[in-house]
């Protein structure tokens, strides 16, 4: 009798009543996957209205190519082509065999950055005293007696430690100005945006406003949130600062650029950034592929939407003739700004 009593809960545990959840497993055929993805974007993507997309037309364009039983690779191509209609570097489809990207943002633009040239002719210039302090490559350039700090940050995915920032900011204190080179920095963590921007802030400034999608309608956003940049660390660098950008500056790098534009002593020099000012979400399709796309929008304090890129204060493109001579036109323009203020 006792054995039976003990066995009873064990049997119940093994069987459970979990079928009540399992009965909701969705179909994972090609049409279901396509429709699920289309609907997720339709109800959650934050720039359908801003980019003037007719999402119904896009559905009709691609849905006719989808049929049940088609190969996974073919379905992936159709779904990723549909996502690329968003013209958004934050829109990706991830399958076990492939990941989709939207490349034209920077592939259709001049590169405006040559890492070898920067390394050999600026960072490793004689007397520049190049150091790699954590994620920050840095040196001090001497231009006719004027000392200019140069800091290169490759990726906002690389963590910025307080000690490293302290060291670099201390090292630059005797400089007359600073060039912060974030060209081809594809973004990363928003935590690094505020950690770095705070080192160049002389006071608390409104950087931008962030609005999250909160409903099905294409224009349904929440009340928004003001985001500030305020001084961080023991010392800050608040002399002239040139931020160097190109179309490879994306996501967190664009956030940083936008935040820095609120300070009068900062000039953005180079090319328009790649944009990407929407925070991407993440989710899964019925066939277990995953996706992400932007679900917030960011506006400047005066209400402008720079999702497609933040224009520089001073536009400069690198010329082949200069590159051949070992000159980076954008860095040189940054040096000129620090020396002259214009």
């Amino acid at each position: 009798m006792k054995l039976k009593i003990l066995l009873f809960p064990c049997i119940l545990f093994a069987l459970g009543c979990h079928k009540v959840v399992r009965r909701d497993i969705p179909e994972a055929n090609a049409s279901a996957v396509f429709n699920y993805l289309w609907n997720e974007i339709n109800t959650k993507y934050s720039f359908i209205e801003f980019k003037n997309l007719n999402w119904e037309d896009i559905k009709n364009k691609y849905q006719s190519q989808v049929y049940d039983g088609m190969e996974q690779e073919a379905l992936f191509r159709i779904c990723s082509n549909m996502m690329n209609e968003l013209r958004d570097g934050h829109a990706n489809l991830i399958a076990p065999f492939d990941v989709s990207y939207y490349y034209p943002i920077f592939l259709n633009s001049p590169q405006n950055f040559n890492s070898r040239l920067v390394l050999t002719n600026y960072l490793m210039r004689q007397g520049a005293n190049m150091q790699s302090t954590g994620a920050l490559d840095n040196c001090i350039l001497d231009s006719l007696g004027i000392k200019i700090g140069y800091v290169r940050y490759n990726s906002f995915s690389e963590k910025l430690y307080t000690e490293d920032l302290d060291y670099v900011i201390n090292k630059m204190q005797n400089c007359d100005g600073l060039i912060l080179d974030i060209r081809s920095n594809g973004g990363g963590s928003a935590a690094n945006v505020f950690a770095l921007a705070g080192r160049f802030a002389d006071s608390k400034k409104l950087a931008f406003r962030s609005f999250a999608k909160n409903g099905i309608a294409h224009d349904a956003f929440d009340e928004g949130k003001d985001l500030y940049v305020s001084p961080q660390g023991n010392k800050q660098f608040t002399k002239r600062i040139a931020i160097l950008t190109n179309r490879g500056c994306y996501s967190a790098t664009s956030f940083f650029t936008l935040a820095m534009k609120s300070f009068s002593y900062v000039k953005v020099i180079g090319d328009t950034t790649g944009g990407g000012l929407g925070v991407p979400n993440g989710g899964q399709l019925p066939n277990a592929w995953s996706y992400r796309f932007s679900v917030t929008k960011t506006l400047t304090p005066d209400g402008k939407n720079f999702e497609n890129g933040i224009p520089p204060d001073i536009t400069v493109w690198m010329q082949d003739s200069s590159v051949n001579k070992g000159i980076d036109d954008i860095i040189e323009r940054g040096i000129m700004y620090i020396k002259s203020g214009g």
Partner: protein
Amino acid sequence: MKKIVLLFLLIIHFNCIAKQNNDSLPNIILLYTPIKETFFVSGINLNRYTAIDNMVSPLVYDGYGLGANFGLLRQKSKSNTNLNFSFCSAKLNNELQAKHYATELNHMLMNCGKSYEINNLTFNTIVTSIGWQFNQVLYFKSNSQFQNSSLTYHISSAISPVFRFEKYLSIKENKKRLAFKKQRYMRINYQFSIPILGAIARPNYNVIRKLNDGTGSNYENSLASEVISNYKLYSFKSFFAINSILCLEYYFKNGNRFMLQYYFNFEQMKKEHFSYKVAQSGLQFCLLTRLNSN
């Protein structure tokens, strides 16, 4: 921190056992005895979860986890009062992906309730009780493949009526209020509750944490403030849950008890873009250490 809590529990446990061993209790177990008894409950549990969270995935995730629980149980001749905390950590997988895409689930439960006997007939019959219960359930799920939407949660606070049925085993007819020598005493009971009103917190519409204002060290809003701001009341229409426990108690000579529980809990929220379902079943092995009786 975990070690301190465990140590604390062990000290209480051993203190109680040591104290009771000194009480020269006769080899007697009384039926319907003490008018009032209080127990410290501690144990471990093995759980199975099946969950679907439509905010990030239409797929069903299933898996097992281990946990622990502790609490207090106060039994009077005509009523039961309980306060229980349990925690379980589990890894859930779906059928279509490799194991390393697992969702980590942390489940916390706090419940307190009281039930009153409404029908007490003779032995070998079922004693029926009715009462109320307050449940605070926290499910935190984390899956890194969802990037900025990796953390989802559903936190529910619900009040429900409780129905409880008890049956005494190993008791012979017409032995009411007599002592049984050398005979162990067992009790089986079944309890279920269905919440009538729930307050639930779910993530934001897009399952992303809102950015903080940029001035502090955290760039994201704190989880606690998001949870509090996302709490909403839901009626029976959009929130359904059931909590059921089948329990077997085995009485030791010294007044302590061993308890084996099988429970099945189910929660469902029906609201477009926020819906979820989760079923939990588990076995719980508990020791009830008697703190006092009179």
